[in-house]
């Protein structure tokens, strides 16, 4: 079989339910490019996605925001399609429906959806884009303006100052590894040399994965992949990163830009676990996240009892863990009704105290019942069923997990979750939440702030 030639790893998972055979294959090219194929013949379309482990996570202060700018530059021409006009014309000739790219904290991704008879053209198209972008000075100068507009717009949004303050407080040494949009001045002065540095280091096959899904013949797709991507040269790939330090003390952030009058958003954010450093705890954190969000569970009911000023009872309480390679966080979010007279500070203090007590209680044997554990596991299985409804949606999901964890992480996810016990959840709680310092963020309306003086008190507290 020719396919064996390409394959370092071959895994087939057949899902028996659907009438359109749904199967996931995983391959590894010699140059390190991972390839995922998902066959689904429901509609005559193919989605091709290519994802890099890049984004803010690989940036330095001098490069902050440039992975996003590079994402734009990839559409601006390459050795085959010399400029933006030619690039877009090629998309049109393939009959592309949707196409786009996106930059996040831990990945950069590009995708197109095309008629299934154009899959080889689509693979060739992306190969030129990722292997030989022109990165011309003229296109750079033009695109800097577009990205400037985009980021300036984001910086005008009312929650920007809150997000920025939280970023700097939680990750004081490497805050820029969490800032996708970056610095307007760095964007305005970006050079071709800087973009080439990004290309040569991070836009390499051993730091990338290709996802092809839909109405495909896997064998012929793999032949086209080898033909178009087999000669792509390896590069340094994902860098060694110094880890973010754990929080050493409790910190506070307060901003008065919220448009919501009479309501304040209060979040408590704990650091960890980071998927790269402590993979095992991330599964338990997910399970915990499902249980703690039970609308009628102990956590929400106890919190509401302790703080009746919570807006909407238990409705707007949420908690959970966000999986990230090196900046995972577990957080609790509440919406508090702002009293007409001064008094919000006292409510927040009570909320904080109640939360600490509740986290301590979570270690108890009966806090989460066996039924709750089983229900949470079933919910995680359900999410998997839903994520597989469309081949492209499934691959988008897989792409996220590939970037922030690993292929095996995702493929073994449900089996690992099934084996978890309450001891695993308790270990996660002990390691990351119980008696650990955390960040308190408060987002309040300007008019409410005039009466409550929260921002001022937080500033005093931080000093």
């Amino acid at each position, binding site marked *: 079989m020719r396919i064996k030639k390409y394959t370092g790893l071959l895994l087939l998972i057949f899902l028996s*339910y*659907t*009438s359109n055979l749904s199967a996931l294959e995983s391959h590894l090219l010699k140059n390190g490019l991972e390839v995922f194929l998902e066959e689904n013949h*429901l*509609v*005559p*379309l193919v989605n091709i996605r290519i994802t890099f482990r890049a984004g803010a996570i690989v940036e330095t202060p001098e490069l902050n925001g440039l992975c996003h700018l590079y994402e734009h530059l990839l559409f601006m021409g390459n050795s*085959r*399609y*010399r*400029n933006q*006009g*030619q*690039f*877009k*014309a*090629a998309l*049109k*000739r393939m*009959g*592309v*429906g*949707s196409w786009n790219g996106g930059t996040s904290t831990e990945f950069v991704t590009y995708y197109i*959806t*095309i*008629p299934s008879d154009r899959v080889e053209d689509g693979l060739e198209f992306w190969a030129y884009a990722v292997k030989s972008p022109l990165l011309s000075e003229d296109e750079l100068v*033009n*695109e800097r*303006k*577009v990205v*400037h*507009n*985009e980021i*300036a*717009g984001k*910086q*005008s949004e*009312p929650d920007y100052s809150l997000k920025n303050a939280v970023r700097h407080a939680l990750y004081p040494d490497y805050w820029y590894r969490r800032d996708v949009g970056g610095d307007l001045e760095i964007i305005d002065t970006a050079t071709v040399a800087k973009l080439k540095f990004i290309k040569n280091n991070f836009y390499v096959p051993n730091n990338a994965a290709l996802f092809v899904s839909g109405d495909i013949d896997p064998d012929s797709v793999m032949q086209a992949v080898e033909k178009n991507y087999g000669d792509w040269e390896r590069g340094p790939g994902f860098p060694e990163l110094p880890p973010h330090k754990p929080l050493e003390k409790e910190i506070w952030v307060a901003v008065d830009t919220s*448009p*919501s*009058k*009479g*309501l304040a958003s209060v979040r408590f954010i704990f650091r960890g676990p980071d998927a790269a450093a402590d993979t095992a705890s991330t599964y338990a954190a997910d399970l915990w996240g499902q249980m703690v969000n*039970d*609308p*009628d569970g102990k956590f929400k009911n106890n919190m509401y009892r302790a703080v009746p000023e919570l*807006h*909407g*009872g*238990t*409705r707007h309480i949420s908690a959970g863990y966000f999986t990230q390679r090196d900046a995972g966080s577990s957080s609790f979010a509440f919406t508090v009704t702002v009293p007409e007279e001064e008094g919000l500070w006292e409510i927040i203090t009570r909320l904080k105290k109640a939360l600490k007590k509740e986290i301590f209680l979570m270690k108890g044997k009966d806090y989460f019942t066996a039924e709750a554990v089983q*229900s949470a596991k*079933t*919910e995680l299985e*359900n999410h998997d*069923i*839903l994520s597989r*409804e*469309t081949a*492209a949606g499934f691959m988008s999901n897989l792409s996220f997990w590939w970037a922030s964890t690993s292929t095996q992480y995702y493929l073994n996810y449900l089996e690992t979750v099934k084996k978890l016990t309450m001891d695993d959840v308790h270990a996660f709680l002990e390691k990351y939440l119980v008696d650990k310092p955390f960040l308190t963020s408060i987002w309040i309306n300007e008019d409410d702030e005039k009466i409550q003086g929260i921002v001022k008190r937080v500033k005093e507290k931080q000093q």
Partner: protein
Amino acid sequence: MKERKFVMKMAVYVSVLILALFAGSCSRNSFVKENLKTFHEFRLKNGIPVVVKIARHSRTKSLVLVINGGKALVPAEKAGLDKLTQQLMRMESKKYSDVKRRTILKKTSSSIGASDGLDYTHYNLKTIDKYFNETFDLYADLLVNPSFPEKLFRETVTNLKNRYRSDLTDGYARVSLALNRSFFSGHPYCSYLFNVETIDNITLEDIKAFYRENYVASRMTLFAAGDFEIHSLKNRLDDAFGSIPQGTGFDAVPQKFAGSQGAPLILDPYADLKKETSYVRANFEVIPVTHKDYWALVLASSMVSEIMTDLIRTKNSMVYSVWSNVFGKRSNYASISAYRTNNPEKVVNLIKESIDIAAAGKCVSPYRGSGNNDEYVPIAEGLGFYKTSFATNFYTGLQTNASIAMKMADSYIHFRDYTNYLRVMSKIQAVSAEEVQRAVVRYIKNSDKVWAITAHPDTVEQIKKDHKAYASSYRVINLR
């Protein structure tokens, strides 16, 4: 020599296109035939029509209940009434407390949603096969026996007011609001534009009365997509919905929009924006979805979008995104939007220039970089590619049971034929280049457009000085 090469290439492209269209036409016919076999229709004992599409490609099951009427049912001074009603209705019922509802939805990973559209409200269930019985019972009880508690009413009102305040901090939401207030003026769609004042006008009694009058059998149609057993589904639906009172039927009637009313440019100064970031939008009335030229207009709109992107973004780097959209509403209208631009005045002029290019019978060349680098080509030479792109998007929208049920609902509302969406590709394929060009001229270029710009006050001052270059008059509004 170069020219001959190009002609050869063109010939190859066109041949491939013709073959593809032929093959596409055959497969489209079988696509329609195969799909038609999967529909089942029946009526409940109180007359509610039900359409079921058997779809076994996924484990999800979806229901979409359409309630006819839309914004025409809501007095402008109580804008938000339909939104509050649907939000409150699906929070708590006689049998299910709010907490119990949320618990079931979480444990089954299901969702019950609703949307108050311009022409109709829809109320939806999306669930996984194994949970259908449990979640359907919840979905049905919320619809038939909502409890509308006072406490949840107050909370929902607070949330909706804050959503409005939040919209006022978003540049694109502001430009849409500024524009729609003028464009929808005097039209039933005006009730779409709620604000703090209109929400304060709504009482819990208003909501209960609105529910009693409008959530009635004669205004409802139910669409289902998934792996259903028809007989048991019918029994279940009859038990749950068969006793909903008849009420009085109602259908939104298309009405004319007021147009620019002498002020084709609305200016919205917003001090919290950075000076280099503005938002531009235009609205204009267009032909209804049932009009013979409708699909030509849709293709025309997509060609104008690409010319604008080429001219404004690619060549002038003046905007993050720019697009044209035909909404497909009963009183139909279209819009052109420029999202985050550093030069709103020039963008308006470039949009007009883009429309002129399409009106002259040209589209962005799909042949750039393949032997001929002409920027624009006659529409006839590019049309096939636009049709293929349309097909790609069309099939993309047929992959989930939820989206299939919504397409059936939308087809039914506009054409009284829930299978109409299956024939969209045939209608697109029948459109000629001449029809597209005519649609650009008649329905886009010659339309009475109302423009709006949201920008920093300094930028607005500049626009006031310069407006005569692109708008006969302007009006500054103060959004609150």
